[in-house]
């Protein structure tokens, strides 16, 4: 009976089990639900202009070759051989923290004929990438570093291809000027020119020696095996007293006046972004109320933004709001005709006013809570999403249980939402428009 109860809890909770491995935080979630095993390594770094470009370039260099697979083509063939393992190394940001991520997903050998040790091979490969890179005379191969510098430059330069993403990056730069959060996780082209194989190698060693490392594994695995594989295949250097916490500088500027920024490009549709500071982040007790606030305002098709900007005024195809939970930014986004700029801004500001006045129906509350409930429950069906949820808790310093968060959301009142709206301040209005007129 006891066993059954535990299963029942696990099905509704995201319960990673810690595994003791020196120098690393290993989190395992055993489940038979998936046809694959997912492994994700997260290395934390402070988001800053000084290192952002290096971290980004490092992710690309590590991805290309290892000591065991010095030729990129051999590395790629090895992944094919592991039944088309999904493998990626990338960077991202969470609040004012940059992350270097190694992602690996392999088929559960249970579903393949006569195959074993596919998972161990995956752990071994992660170890190769992380701890046994290709070094020539002690430094990364100059050829690969130079070729990846070109790749990173292309990546940075092609952000403009996706106008939604571009507008988002531009407003972040303007809104958070002078704060670490303005830094892109890919860094910038200028800093890229300064990096060479020797300096990148030195940076790599420092990162591995000093920065917190997390390894998540989800799938049909057992703790004893995981521990054995990691110990055998991921050989970290002698580390400073285990996992130095990265000291986050959390900047929180009060808004004195709303900035307005307009950029012009050859576009058919204008992108309107309005960025707010909420002064609430993931760790705060008001966070569940902020989720409900955001849900009523703009994150769903029943939200005020969608209904008023799109359905009633017919100004846009999309009008949404999104949270950056670790920085506490709420971003409203819409694609409009530039001639409707003032009209759209007015309607959006009106919606924020309604939130402040508490003009929120019981139905808006219940729809938002029900939709949030479903959204969080859906995380349980994806290994990657469960890792993301657990990691958000870890980096915030307030790891919530899924069930606790759901309970907190269900208890939020209109008054709680109104209190959140008192804290939310519009900071910057950004418009990316065409080159006609003006």
């Amino acid at each position, binding site marked *: 009976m006891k066993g059954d109860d535990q299963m029942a809890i696990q099905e509704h909770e995201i319960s990673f089990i810690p595994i003791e491995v020196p120098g690393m935080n290993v989190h395992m979630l055993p489940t038979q*639900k998936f*046809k694959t095993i997912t492994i994700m390594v997260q290395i934390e770094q402070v988001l800053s202009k000084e290192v952002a470009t290096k971290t980004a370039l490092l992710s690309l260099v590590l991805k290309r070759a290892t000591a065991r697979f010095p030729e990129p083509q051999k590395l790629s063939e090895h992944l094919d*051989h592991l*039944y088309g393992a999904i493998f990626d190394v990338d960077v991202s940001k969470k609040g004012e923290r940059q992350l270097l991520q190694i992602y690996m997903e392999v088929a559960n050998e249970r579903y393949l004929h006569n195959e074993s040790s596919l998972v161990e091979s995956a752990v071994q490969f992660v170890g190769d990438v992380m701890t046994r890179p290709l070094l020539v005379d002690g430094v990364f191969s100059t050829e690969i570093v130079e070729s990846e510098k*070109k790749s990173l430059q*292309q990546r940075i330069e092609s952000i403009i291809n996706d106008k939604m993403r571009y507008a988002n990056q531009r407003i972040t730069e303007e809104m958070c000027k002078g704060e670490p959060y303005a830094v892109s996780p890919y860094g910038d082209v200028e800093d890229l020119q300064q990096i060479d194989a020797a300096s990148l190698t030195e940076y790599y060693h420092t990162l591995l020696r000093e920065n917190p490392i997390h390894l998540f594994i989800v799938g049909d695995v057992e703790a004893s095996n995981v521990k054995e594989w990691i110990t055998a295949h991921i050989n970290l250097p002698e580390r400073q007293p285990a996992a130095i916490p990265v000291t986050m500088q959390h900047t929180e500027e009060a808004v004195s006046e709303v900035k307005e920024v307009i950029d012009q490009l050859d576009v058919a549709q204008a992108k309107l972004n309005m960025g707010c500071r909420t002064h609430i982040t993931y760790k705060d007790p008001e966070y569940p109320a902020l989720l409900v606030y955001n849900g009523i305002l703009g994150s769903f*098709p029943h939200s005020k933004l969608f209904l008023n900007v799109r359905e009633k005024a017919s100004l846009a195809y999309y009008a949404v709001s999104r949270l950056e939970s670790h920085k506490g930014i709420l971003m409203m986004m819409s694609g409009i005709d530039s001639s409707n700029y003032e009209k759209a801004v007015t309607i959006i500001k009106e919606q924020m006013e309604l939130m402040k006045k508490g003009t929120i129906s019981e139905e808006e509350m219940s729809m938002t809570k*029900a939709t949030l409930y479903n959204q969080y429950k859906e995380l349980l069906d994806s290994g990657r999403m469960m890792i993301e949820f657990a990691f958000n808790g870890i980096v915030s310093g307030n790891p919530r249980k899924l069930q606790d968060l759901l309970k907190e959301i269900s208890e939020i009142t209109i008054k709680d939402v109104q209190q959140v709206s008192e804290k939310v301040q519009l900071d910057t209005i950004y418009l990316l428009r065409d080159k006609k007129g003006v």
Partner: protein
Amino acid sequence: MKTVTFDQVNETLYYETLPNGLSVFLLPKEGFSKTYAVFTTRYGSNDSHFKLNGKEIRVPDGIAHFLEHKLFEKEQGDVAAEFSRNGASYNAFTTFNRTAYLFSSTDKVEENLKILLDFVQEPYFSGPSVEREKGIIGQEIQMYDDNPDWKVYTNLLQAMYQEYPVRLQIAGTIESISNIDKDLLYSCYETFYHPSNMILFVVGGFDQESITRLIKDNQAAKDFSQAPEIERVFPDEIAQVSKKQIEATLSVGIPKLYIGFKEAVNGLTGEALLKRELSTKLGLDVLFGTSSPFYQKHYDSGLVTEGFGFDYSNEHDYGYSIIGGDAPDPERLVEEVKQVLKMASEEGLDEEAFQRQKRKSIGLYMRSLNSIEFIANQFTSYKFNDIDLFDVVPTLEKITLEEVTERMKEHLREVQMAVSIVRSP
């Protein structure tokens, strides 16, 4: 309900065709929180010219997509609120060949399924709301106009096809949708939304018996007229491409290049069509995949970038492959691709690489079965072509190197090739 079990992937599928003609498929997945249901009609942007009970009808381009938007509207308001009350996520999409309505939820699955069936089967179109929708879809069209990936893709289709409607935008143009009114929407609805033209697929953590009962009761309680005789009218399409090259300008960091190859012979269905798809993809993977000598050489030289890749699409009446991505020097890359084609047709394909790609394809297929959204949509799309999603691995295993080599020779021919480029002004 009948069942079929697929041991290798450990799945059991329940299926039945109801008396009104609706095909129902249920795939319960143990341990999943979420249920995903998709209700699809075999009606897409390509179907703008047809005969209904002998009468020939031409409708404005983009009407299938327009209809998809308007089906959410009901006399007493928007159906969106009903889903939202239950916390469900819902959506719809239109492709060249089908229109799908879907929801996912972890709770109140039965209520949500009933909402899905009822709103799709009870249309309500009104004049003013049709007019209002033109503004919204106008913005959707403009959003796509700014999207370089979409531009390079749709331009390529335009270059490849002389007449076939896949060369037109799914959403139509601002001009074409201005001609849509509620009567036209009703005509299209009556033609293409009969249950016999539709598939319902439900997958996830639901109770199979109660869901079966709900679907049967819900359908039995509704009256449907006799299934209409639909005859789609498609223009003849010759093998030769319409234009060798097409260019557009948009603000992009790096130019985009798509090279397309159009199928010359069509008309396949079922296993033959699946085999063609899988062997084409295997061949393209050997020649242009990330472990191909081509990719590695040109990644190092900077001619191809991270996003370089290929895809293949095949339907009963048309098919094409696309090779490309961000390309700093599109003209040179086209020449290099042509070199590979020449070499492949002279020397054939590498046996070891072929076996490796086969293995990779099997693993990737397994992985895709983690996604209940993928299962539902891919299953439906295949079913309209009489293909079974769970036949992929057995079919893959049977494909030989000789077949793939032959396939590459007949498919990758210069006369069937077109090039699309998007670059900055």
